[in-house]
């Protein structure tokens, strides 16, 4: 039941991507309409038929998508939101009712995960998204076609970065297949004695923060540090994986708060606010980031074991 429902949701998600491809193709003002359309078509196709075609072909499709983003041909185009005054008028008319569909997604996802435990949060997300769409359709009286248009607008806005989490997971499994984790952990093992749980927790949390600071991306750090440090020194020691995993990623976010590499969060906003010191955002975040990182270590050590 669960896997059938999920498969249906994957097909629908694939359709969102393919509709996006169509809108990119029809966008006359898009400088790279064909290439952008190809990218989203490939992504959608992987979702719909990927399960039934040989895995190496999916791999080739992904490499092709990588080439399209590498030559900067996957871009936004000219799909437009409603004008400012139209949106403000609609906001004034709908008042707080406008939050109902938005909250439906999260509430339904939580409800399904809690009550129908066998279905899980992912089916909940799908059901919540469909429910929210229907409620919004009734409340706003927008045509279904408009939903396709606005979904495409958002996906084009988020852009190729939306496939990054999946690619990083794939990278993680390549690292595992190639034995990268063993190399890092044998390096760490020289410093850390086996069975030293506190040492492992500190190495995992600090490793996440430092690696995130270097790379500017906690997601990428998570794949590497979890394989290298988390597995042998935290999970293998019997840590609760949900707790250790959740805290490891947010330990990485403590690093995000302290690095100019995370330009989107720290440098661009400083420029946007016209601060005198371009590192002002980082300066104001360092104390709380360090305090939070220390809290992560304590929490993981006490709560995950």
């Amino acid at each position, binding site marked *: 039941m669960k896997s059938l429902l999920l498969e249906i949701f994957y097909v629908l998600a694939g359709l*969102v991507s393919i509709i996006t491809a169509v809108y990119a193709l029809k966008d006359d003002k898009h400088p790279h309409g064909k290439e952008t359309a190809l990218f989203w078509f490939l992504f959608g196709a992987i*979702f719909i038929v*990927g399960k039934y075609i040989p*895995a*190496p*072909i*999916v*791999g*080739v499709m992904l*490499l092709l*998508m990588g080439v399209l983003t590498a030559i900067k041909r996957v871009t936004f185009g000219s799909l437009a939101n409603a004008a400012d005054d139209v*949106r*403000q*008028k609609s*906001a004034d008319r*709908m008042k*707080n009712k*406008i*939050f109902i569909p938005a*909250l439906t*997604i*999260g509430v339904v996802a*939580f409800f399904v995960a809690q009550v129908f435990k066998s279905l899980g*949060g992912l089916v*909940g*997300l799908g059901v919540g998204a469909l429910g*929210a*769409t229907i409620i*919004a359709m009734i409340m706003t009286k*927008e045509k279904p076609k408009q*939903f396709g248009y*606005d979904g495409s607008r*958002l996906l084009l806005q988020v852009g190729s970065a939306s496939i*990054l*989490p999946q*690619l990083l*997971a794939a990278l993680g*499994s*390549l690292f*595992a297949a*190639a034995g*990268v984790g063993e190399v890092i952990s044998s390096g760490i093992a020289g410093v850390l004695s086996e069975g030293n749980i506190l040492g492992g927790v500190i190495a995992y949390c600090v490793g996440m923060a430092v690696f995130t600071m270097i*790379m500017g*991306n906690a997601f990428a750090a998570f794949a590497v540090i979890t394989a290298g440090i988390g597995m042998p020194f935290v*999970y293998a020691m019997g840590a609760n*994986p*949900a707790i250790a995993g*959740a805290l490891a990623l947010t330990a990485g976010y403590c690093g995000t*708060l302290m690095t100019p*590499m995370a330009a989107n969060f720290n440098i661009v*906003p400083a420029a946007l*606010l016209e*601060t*005198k010191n371009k590192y*002002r*955002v980082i*300066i104001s975040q360092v104390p*709380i980031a360090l305090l*939070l990182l220390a809290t*992560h270590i304590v929490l993981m050590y006490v709560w995950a074991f």
Partner: protein
Amino acid sequence: MIKLIGVLIIVIGFIMKFDTIAVVLVAGVITGLVGGLGFVEILTVIGEAFIKTRYMSLFLLTLPVIGILERSGLRERAADLIRNMKSVTTGKVLTTYHVIRELAAAFSLRLGGHVQFIRPLVNPMAYGAAEKNFTEVDEETEDIIKGYSAGSENLGNFFGQNVFVAAGGVLLIVGTLGELGVEVTPFAVSKASIPIAIIALVYSAIQNYLLDRRIAKKLNSKKSGKPAAEVK
């Protein structure tokens, strides 16, 4: 040691700001090659992992409805609510925004952002509160308020988002651990993300309270009755 070349490629690629997707793919393929895998084998691992992790991209299903809500003034309504709140100090404005931002993130709503909220709304309100309460706000204090404003967006966003059961971070944790042979459900990870979300909010509220005290110490209150001329 040579197997670490993929890590090196990622670090250098990210620092040089090459295309992220391409860097990750190149790092993966080269790591596979030096790890002794054949090219077809590498493609198989990538393809299988990508199919297995499709659930990470289920957020696509939410895009049409969120797009429509944006068209119908979702952000404008949220901005109205923030504008109408009765906050008297800089710190209270920032803490209130942090609460809203974190709740929104926990519900997977993209109600926030430096461009959409901090620059046009939160920073002017935080600064406005200081202006209302003190005779003269110096340049350094103005800069500090800007830093804290941007910080409230980042903190609320980062530590709230994983409370949502299908957040990108949650699914990354589930997927990465799964690839490494540790099974865990998204729901368990999202529940395990709640304590740190609350702690981050408490720390931030304390920090904002201390900011209020710091500003009050440095600047002269309008209520103290000192004339502006004496302030300098």
